């Protein structure tokens, strides 16, 4: 197993794919975070300047608005680890290097396990790189008063890294299942960039704010980060209101969180831990079937 993991690492490091994916992931996370942070800045300051808000003396400036930049940028950048994972086995199958890989491994199960372990590590690596890019972008683009505190920041980064890891494995599984890198990539990219996000919005809107979207792969994945962000903001808002002498019940909090989730790119998402479990389930589904398919696949 150790030998095979070493071989898998060499497979990755002796070709250009890893940095051809990691550099754009870093840049996208950074740029997206910067852009969203700047946009949030101007929207929030515009809204704060509205007379009614000022009259009621609600200080939006005390809220950590930049969590939205963090989550959105990490969500979008996950497509790179996802592509990376999708190509892990699918490109070996299409390039026929899988023949040699199977010939030099004690058995298929061991090789596929070694691949899984290797891509868990690489998924985490991608997650860390993306987290760094998103953090720098947010720090650069956001007003310092909108930045969350270190604990909240770290929480969002961790949920984003977990998302990267799971997307990597989901891609690996779908690629292994389909055996065609082009087919698997087209499906995943169209889903994660177009069908998923739009579908989540439509689904949430049509079902009047149900959590249906949160059960889908994209919704649950975005829910990982989005729900973390909404939790941060909701706590702060409730604190504000409570300090001002108001009372917020659980329904009120839930409604508010839903709105923030939608802003953070995860409409209809469930709570953090539920989203994580659901996305883990989706990943496991594709991953397990992909691996099973390749335990018996005839390599011709």
């Amino acid at each position, binding site marked *: 197993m150790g030998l*095979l993991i070493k071989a898998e690492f060499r497979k990755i490091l002796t070709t250009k794919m890893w940095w051809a994916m990691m550099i754009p992931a870093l840049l996208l996370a950074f740029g997206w975070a910067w852009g969203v942070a700047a946009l949030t800045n101007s929207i929030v300051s515009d809204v704060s300047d509205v007379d009614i808000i000022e009259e009621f003396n609600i200080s939006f400036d005390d809220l950590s608005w930049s969590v939205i930049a963090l989550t959105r940028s990490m969500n979008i950048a996950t497509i790179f680890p996802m592509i990376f994972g999708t190509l892990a086995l699918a490109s070996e199958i299409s390039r026929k290097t899988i023949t040699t890989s199977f*010939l030099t491994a004690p058995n298929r199960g061991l090789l596929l396990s070694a691949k899984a372990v290797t891509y868990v590590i690489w998924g985490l690596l991608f997650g860390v790189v993306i987290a760094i890019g998103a953090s720098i972008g947010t720090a650069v683009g956001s007003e310092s008063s909108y930045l969350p505190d270190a604990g909240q920041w770290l929480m969002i980064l961790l949920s984003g890294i977990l998302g990267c890891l799971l997307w990597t494995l989901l891609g690996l599984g779908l690629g292994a299942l389909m055996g065609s890198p082009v087919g698997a990539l087209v499906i995943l990219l169209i889903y994660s960039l177009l069908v998923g996000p739009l579908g989540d919005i439509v689904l949430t809107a049509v079902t009047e704010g149900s959590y249906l979207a949160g059960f889908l792969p994209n919704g649950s994945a975005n829910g990982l980060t989005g729900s973390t962000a909404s939790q941060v903001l909701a706590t702060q808002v409730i604190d504000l209101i409570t300090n001002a002498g108001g009372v917020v019940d659980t329904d009120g909090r839930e409604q508010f969180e839903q709105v923030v989730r939608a802003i953070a790119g995860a409409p209809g998402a469930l709570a953090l831990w539920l989203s994580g479990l659901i996305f883990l389930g989706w990943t496991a589904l594709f991953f397990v079937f992909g691996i099973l398919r390749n335990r018996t696949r005839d390599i011709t």
Partner: protein
Amino acid sequence: MQDGSGRIVVQNLTKHFGQVAAVQNLSFHVEPGSVTGFLGPNGSGKTTTLRMLLGLVTPTSGHATINGQPFARLGNPGRIVGGVLEAQGFHPGRTARDHLRVYGAAIGVPDQRADEVLNLVGLGTAGNRAAGGFSLGMKQRLALATALLGDPQVLVLDEPANGLDPEGIAWLRTFLKAFASSGRTVLISSHLLAEVEQTIDQVVIISRGQTMYYGPLDDLRKQQQSRVLVQPADPQKLVAALQENQFTNVSPTPDGKLAVVGATLQQVGDIAAKAGVALYGVHEERADLEQLFFRLTSGQYTGQSPYGAPPPGWGAPQQGYQQPPQQGYAPGTPPEGYQQVPPAGYQQAPQPGYPQPGGYPSTPDGFQQPGTPPGGYQQPAPGGYPQAAPGGYQQQPTGAPQGYAPGGQQAPNPYAPPQQGWGQQPSGPQPVQQPPQDPPPPGEHTNPGGGAN
């Protein structure tokens, strides 16, 4: 665990891809210390067999083992068996050395082994080049280098000479011989006998997924019988005289000569002189190994020679002559002349899905196929193969050339129709007897008896 014997055993191996039977009940074994050629035409099941041996394809039934174990239970297979397979891939952007270091790591050999095998296969200077820029021959060398990484005991090569230049082929030949002579095992497939003839000691010849011949190459060579082509003044008289002298295998050639199998020039000359038949020309002709191979494997797609037919009276012993007549001898021979049986004749019916030969003349009216082939011929059990006596299962009674075989010792019906060998050989216990029938349209006649499943 594996027994370290270096033996390859293929036992009753069968593989169906959907409806297509790629390999049928194939059995043979390969001993260490020898180079065994695995020969058959394109699509005969060679690659599938080798891939089943290497655990890449799951057999439908039967098993293939190396060192007494299936591939997945060899422990660290890279140390035991090296495979050079067709269409083995390389990442186009990875250098040759990196490729070897990747798989060297998987096997667990030190990194300098990559450079050793690169030099061994003559790619020492190309180690830093990306495999995507390699020629076919260089890729073959790199595939061989990969197979040799773990210094394996067994080498399995699928058409390794493809793309190699003559120099490369010569080198490969020397290399494999040296490899085998160190007590290790080599199994090498090819669709060209000539390509491997000088390399191999043993040969397994398959066609349509079944074993056609299995044994030492030398025994196959011994089977090459010569025939004498003679142009007599009075063919009838000479044939009669020859038959008196026990030379019954005589047939006319299209250009008006007689072909006498199993006799020497002197014998034919003496007999002719005694019989008072003038000879206008006489010479000896030998079939080479390639023709023998062609005869053994013909008929897969094109059908056998349109003149070949299953022997009437199959199992009938043929005196003194073990060899099936060479189809390659006289390709132009008209049907009446050469009632020969290409070995394909005792094969199973063609697999469904194979293109049917189109150019067959249709069955003559009212033809009844005589004789039932002994069941034992249908699927020779591996154990039953006399290794040293290929004649034992090679032997095909030759249809006596009608007109010259008055005795008709084994030919109830010398007019075997041209194409019977293909579809009408029963694949199992099905009756061979064909009811008289109208000539079926071409394309149907291959499967009239339901012999093909």
